[in-house]
């Protein structure tokens, strides 16, 4: 038995460390509208489940007076806990301790918990709130970042990795989040950039605030670096818990089954999609019309909104949805939406989550900016990701599926397992307007009334090709279904593909166009 005195010493030491950077620094943190690192972990983990590791770690820096400084926990709290009853690894940088700066031991605590999460096959959650590299520790600090990035990469596709940006995350530090699966940001709190406003102003003369440069909204709407945006830290933690509820704990696991429910009646699938293919609608309502309880957990809601991605469940099983969104930019494929879909497809494939693709797109977005931004290379990501994916892949063609867009959106040709189409589906090499203009160019040009002739030819083409039956006649579409049969068809498809097994040629890894 330890003597009472020794127990008292332990208690005293623990208390000291738990004060982080001290009362004053904590006040500052609070004044910025932020929770402390310890509060964050406690809020995110199930009550009483957090076990701290490496509480008494100390830094070894000697230069610049660092030998006289004690940094509690070296500015980061690490450990394990549970979320929804399942174990996770977590670390939270403590901004109250030397600005959460990353030194050698700080990084070693993080890499230790990362190794643990990979070894034990459980998700890793990293909470970032740091001023950056601890300059006093020189290249050791850079080494620390490198070791973290390396582990992020090794763990990629093996365990879910989640980054939460709850403060500054600048310079090289941004690359750990960028290498992880999902990045969470909070309005007015998260700041991510490679070079900050001061440097940009000095070097380039461009005057921009931190928020405008790399705030939560910027990364949620413009860059696509963030996947989930929230107004508060509490809301952010709820989002993380929700996300985890859809995921398996590793790539050898399957997601836990959720409660089975019917979709809500208000999402009447037969009334959501207008027959006139030029009329918009919110494709998310089609998703809600087929998921349990009409639940849809959307990823990257505000970025590249012409493509919708996210999770839902069908009879308790997690499904990844990829859908063109006619409500935004007519649902076209472009640089950003291809990037968005491509990565999500690979995510679902890595984690054994079946893919349901809802197709309604007029094609690719025309424009010099798109061509010069490399829409060829980015668009190829969608083809690559679908072709490579071996999870069950189900497609429903709701309305338009033209040209390259038809091929890209998980067509039979990319090894889709099931392709359904609604009666309004138009599967063709291009839309009737474009096709008629090309095929009947001479007739239209030489007609007395070209507009009338064009309309007539468009109609002719429409009747002949703008339907699902030409593709169904070749077996590219397995079955044409009424909208109300969609959930039933998806259920059936999922039921029969439970034991799906397909191979890939032996290779070290492919070379996706990124």
């Amino acid at each position, binding site marked *: 038995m330890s003597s009472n005195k020794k127990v008292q010493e332990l208690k005293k030491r623990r208390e000291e460390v738990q004060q982080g950077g001290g009362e004053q620094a904590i006040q500052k943190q609070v004044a910025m509208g932020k929770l402390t690192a310890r509060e964050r972990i406690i809020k995110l983990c199930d009550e009483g489940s957090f076990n701290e590791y490496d509480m008494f770690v100390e830094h070894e820096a000697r230069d610049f007076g660092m030998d006289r400084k004690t940094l509690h926990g070296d500015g980061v709290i690490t450990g394990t806990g549970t979320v929804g009853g399942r174990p996770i690894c977590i670390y939270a940088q403590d901004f109250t301790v030397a600005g959460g700066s990353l030194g050698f031991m700080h990084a070693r605590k993080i890499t230790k918990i990362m190794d643990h999460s990979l070894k034990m096959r459980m998700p890793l959650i990293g909470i970032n709130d740091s001023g950056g590299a601890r300059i006093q520790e020189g290249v050791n600090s850079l080494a620390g970042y490198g070791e973290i990035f390396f582990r992020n990469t090794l763990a990629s596709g093996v365990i879910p990795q989640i980054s939460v940006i709850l403060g500054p995350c600048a310079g090289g530090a941004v690359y750990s989040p960028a290498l992880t699966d999902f990045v969470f940001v909070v309005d007015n709190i998260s700041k991510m950039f490679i070079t900050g406003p001061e440097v940009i102003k000095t070097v380039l003369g461009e005057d921009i605030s931190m928020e405008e440069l790399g705030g939560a909204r910027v990364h949620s709407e413009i860059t696509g670096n963030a996947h989930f945006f929230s107004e508060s830290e509490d809301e952010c933690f709820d989002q993380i818990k929700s996300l985890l509820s859809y995921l398996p704990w590793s790539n050898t696991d399957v997601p836990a089954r959720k409660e089975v429910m019917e979709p809500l009646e208000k999402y009447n699938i037969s009334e959501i999609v207008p027959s006139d293919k030029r009329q*918009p609608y919110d494709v998310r309502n089609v998703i809600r019309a087929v998921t349990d309880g009409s639940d849809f957990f959307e990823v990257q809601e505000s970025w590249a909104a012409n493509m919708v991605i996210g999770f839902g469940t069908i009879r308790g099983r997690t499904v990844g949805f990829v859908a063109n969104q006619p409500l935004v930019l007519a649902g076209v494929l472009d640089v950003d939406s291809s990037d968005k879909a491509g990565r999500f497809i690979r995510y679902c494939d890595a984690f054994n989550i079946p893919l349901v693709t809802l197709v309604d797109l*007029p094609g690719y977005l025309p424009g010099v900016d798109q061509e010069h931004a490399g829409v060829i290379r980015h668009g190829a990501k969608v083809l690559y990701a679908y072709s490579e994916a071996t999870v069950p892949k189900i497609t429903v063609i709701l309305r338009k599926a033209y040209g390259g867009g038809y091929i890209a959106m998980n067509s039979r040709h990319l090894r889709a397992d099931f392709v359904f189409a609604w009666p309004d589906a138009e599967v063709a090499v291009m839309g009737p307007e474009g096709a008629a*203009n090309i095929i009947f160019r001479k007739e239209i040009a030489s007609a007395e009334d070209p507009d009338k002739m064009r309309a007539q030819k468009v109609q002719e083409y429409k009747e002949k090709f703008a339907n699902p039956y030409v593709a169904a006649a070749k077996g590219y579409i397995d079955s044409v279904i009424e909208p109300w049969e969609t959930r039933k068809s998806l259920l059936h498809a999922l039921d029969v593909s439970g034991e799906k097994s397909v191979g890939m040629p032996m290779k070290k890894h492919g070379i996706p166009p990124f």
Partner: protein
Amino acid sequence: MSNKENISKKDQSAPPMESLEIGGALYATRLTNKFRNREFWDKPDVKKIEAIIPGTIQRIMVKEGVEVSTGTALLILEAMKMRNEILAPFSGVVRKIHVKKGEMVPKSYLLIEMD
């Protein structure tokens, strides 16, 4: 169908529909800010020499009206601690110099016009 009303009500608070032409058909849809703010392509004008990178005019080696030959250094644009020599892309006359020594310029800023 009170539930259905809920769905459409939600849509009403959102921005109004605009239109986008793809493949000869006009689609009613919403446009994004990113789409609206996209840069339109202009045919590059070789006579207009623009900043290749944001930076500071460190030195100007020519004067308006002088004749220069292809490859003559016109000015030095310092950016990221590198002194970039901006060279004449063709033989001709320096018509107008739009910058002064020490001036900080953004990317694509018009520096010199030649003829």
